[in-house]
């Protein structure tokens, strides 16, 4: 996948049947969010907090639809108890997490949740697949969609700061 991986990622998710894009606004997911807003074929769901998106995706599955939750790593902490619903009900759960608080982070406020993102997700039984370079985005997301939607797993694709870059606070 080339420099334009966010646009290709959107096309890939849509081709995979995703029709509900849930998010709390986030710079790391800006292109996916904007594409979903401009796309009349999908539901673009702006949340007030990330945990709403977890339950939303369970409801989507009850109705036969596929959804994805787009969030920043800080939002992961807002979701944890609702993952009980996904694990307890074997609901497919796919989230794309734009990482903060990892590689090259310059804002110390982001560090605690960023460093804890993977351990807390794994503690809830969510499998984390990290992406560190643009060519890996497509194959990892393809694997993630298969694992979530076919095997009803809970999958978090971590879009690391090696991939998306660290925000400058200089």
């Amino acid at each position, binding site marked *: 996948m080339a420099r334009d991986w966010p646009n290709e990622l959107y096309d890939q998710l849509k081709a995979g049947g995703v*029709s*509900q894009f849930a998010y709390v606004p986030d710079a790391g997911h800006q292109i996916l969010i904007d594409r979903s807003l401009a796309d009349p074929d999908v*539901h673009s*769901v*702006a*949340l*007030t*907090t990330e*945990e*709403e*998106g*977890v*339950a*939303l*995706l*369970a*409801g*989507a*599955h*009850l*109705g*036969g*639809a596929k*959804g994805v939750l787009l969030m920043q790593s800080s939002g992961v902490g807002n979701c944890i*108890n*609702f993952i*009980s*619903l996904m694990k*307890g*009900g*074997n*609901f497919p759960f796919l989230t794309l997490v734009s990482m903060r608080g990892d590689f090259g982070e310059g804002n110390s406020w982001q560090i605690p949740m960023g460093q804890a993102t993977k351990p807390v997700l794994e503690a809830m039984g969510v499998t984390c697949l990290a992406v560190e370079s643009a060519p890996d985005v497509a194959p990892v997301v393809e694997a993630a969609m298969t694992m979530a939607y076919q095997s009803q797993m809970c999958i978090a694709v971590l879009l690391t700061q090696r991939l998306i870059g660290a925000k400058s606070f200089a």
Partner: protein
Amino acid sequence: MALKTKNIGGGRSAGKQASGHLERRAAVIALLGDTDDNDLLFVTGLAGSRSDVLEAVGADCKRVYPLSGAMGAATSMALGLALAQPDKRVICVTGDGELLMNVGTLATISILNPPNLAILCVDNEHYGETGFQRSHTGLGVDLARIAEGCGIQAVRTVIDEADFDEAGKLLRSGNGAGFVLLKVGVSDPPGVARNRDAVLNKAWFREAVLGKA
């Protein structure tokens, strides 16, 4: 209208009071009306609202997804379902305590305004499941005004049987998201038995909506 506050029923709720006087179980059953319609789907919160709906629709009805945990999830779940099934009617029945936990979902629902989604909040002003501690709605918080403030256009507060007809229609039909706040007295009607297995309930529900896998 001045409503006389009175306590209904005993058990764990004995001695507790709320501003509403309707009996919750009977009121929910009356508001939901005829539920024998394959295009009518339910998501319930846990505890009281779960049993209210199960008694209304039948404990073995597959068109209901009852939560027994993940408090605060019911309304968002109903939204995802309503978006996925635009030709079905989705009614979310929840309680005041659960809705307070994720009240921002009313804002999320409002801006999407799905025409096939309605929320019925059974407001007894207490957290029944944990021992009937008083909730914020018994201390001045009005969830109907919050729903209106979120921009939901069709909002009704039910305090009396005279309100049932219009509120029932709002739940059953409408051209935008609807919200009904049902003010009830404090009571502790018996729970309705149903398998709590979340996977089993998911399979039942999907079979009812989507057909056999």
